[in-house]
């Protein structure tokens, strides 16, 4: 039996991503600075 303490919920089937720059990834830009600010607050 799996331990209760190791049970993890899956991610949503359609994940939500932040738009991290003026253009989104269709223009191949992932702005790391903004993303990190988003992560660290």
């Amino acid at each position: 039996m799996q331990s209760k303490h190791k049970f993890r919920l899956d991610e949503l089937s359609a994940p939500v991503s932040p738009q991290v720059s003026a253009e989104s990834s269709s223009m191949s830009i992932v702005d790391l600075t903004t993303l990190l600010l988003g992560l660290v607050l």
Partner: protein
Amino acid sequence: MNSYLNHFQNAIKDLKDEQFLTHALTHFNALLQTPFLIELVNTYLKKLSTETHFYPTRSSINYWHILNTDAFTLTLVRLEKATASKFVNAYPYDKVIVPLTENIQYSHYKQPYPFPVNILDKTKKIIPFAIDKTLSKNTSYVIKKHEDIFSYKGGKSDEAMLLSFSCRKSHSYGWEYDANTLHPVRLVTNVLQSARLEHTCKLLGELGNKSSLPNLFEFLENPYHNVRWEAARAIMNIDFDKGLEALLILKEDTHPDIKQSVDNALKQISALNLI
């Protein structure tokens, strides 16, 4: 800021989103006929050379927000050829782009009706409209919200500079598609706050301290579904019994992806004999 940009800002400051493709675009095209950018960059070059710690606000290596009003944003964007994307995006706001340094290659797709916009329908597929075309330098190209998808394919040089002018009041989602299958794969939100809340919930879950639980439970009622689900995941990471409680709270959630995720989780828990 220079007199051309000042004039432009005053002209568009009271316009609404729905006036973007009419009034705002007219003012933008008039701005393009002026030397506003050359003047601006020259001014910044002087500042950079004289002020050691000068840093234009809202900028990074890839973009520079030249102008932000309540409704619109004007941005200089750097695009790298080497990172040609496997994904293409629709936007929840109108946008116009102008290549500034060279002609660029692009493909243009049409998006089928994407509503409700916060629920991804993976059976839908974008429709090729203009593939492998050339957009000439200094030419405006309009990308309509929820309808047009513009995919940058590179230019002659390793990187190109674009001017991007868009509405910014829309707090909504755009769908991101796989450029090969043309089916949607994820939602992209322009609400930075929801992304930050989601990541913060995740961080609390990974840190695993029970003192975070009351705070996380409050986020089960957040208006953004990705925040609600990440709060539940964090709670489950910290305490299984509390996680089960969170799942029961979200069992009748209004978002179908959450309902589905709760159902899947409860089935897994039952199959593993955890309760």
